[in-house]
């Protein structure tokens, strides 16, 4: 399951929310990917997520593979909302 989001935080996908998002992703055994500018990367590495350099107004996708993809995606969305990323 894959969804697209626009990052609305003026700080972009900065260190603290990125670390929380990665931490949440690592709670699950599922493959979870972050898509940016047409390429996909694992959401389970903070270094990879920071190396994307996602700024305010840019789009990302999150893709979660089954099982329980929808629930996991919602938990990741909750983290993004908590930090006003989306």
């Amino acid at each position, binding site marked *: 399951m894959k969804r697209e989001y626009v990052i609305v935080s003026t700080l972009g996908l900065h260190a603290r929310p990125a670390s929380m998002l990665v931490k949440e992703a690592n709670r699950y055994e599922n493959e979870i990917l972050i898509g940016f500018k047409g390429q996909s990367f694992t959401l389970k590495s903070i270094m*990879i997520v920071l190396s994307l350099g*996602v700024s305010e107004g840019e789009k990302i996708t999150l893709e979660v593979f089954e099982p329980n993809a929808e629930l996991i995606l919602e938990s990741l969305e909750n983290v993004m909302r908590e930090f006003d990323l989306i």
Partner: protein
Amino acid sequence: MVVEKDLTFKLTEDFIQIIKEPISSYEEAIKIASKPLIDKKYIKPFYVNSMINAVKDNGPYIVVATDIALPHARPINGSEKLGFSVTIFDHPVIFSEEKSVHLLIVLSGLDPMTHIALLKYIALRIDFPNKMEQLIKKKSKKEILKLFKDPVLMEE
């Protein structure tokens, strides 16, 4: 969108430190690691307290990889110029029971865009565990400079 070529800061040996003495706390380590940036007026002294408070308030999220922490605060909290300092500690800097590091890279971004670009720049260069391990062991300013001048194998 700020990309790497827009980052005007060039790392020199003035911004690199190797600390041989044991330190008492991560707070002290952040203060020591900030010194080159304060001396050269890249950050105001209160930026240091903002970085320390961010860890106290939010936990050690600045420990981004094995042995590496990236202390930083919001640009409005006393960042004057875009840049960073690199400090290797011979003795571990303890952030929590599970998290201790030997390398602190203090970031000073001028605004959200350059801050994100700086995070990206650093992340692309330090995401090589073996390389970092060697670097920390070698403890040479020249080697550190070389690491940050190396091109990276990732497309913009």
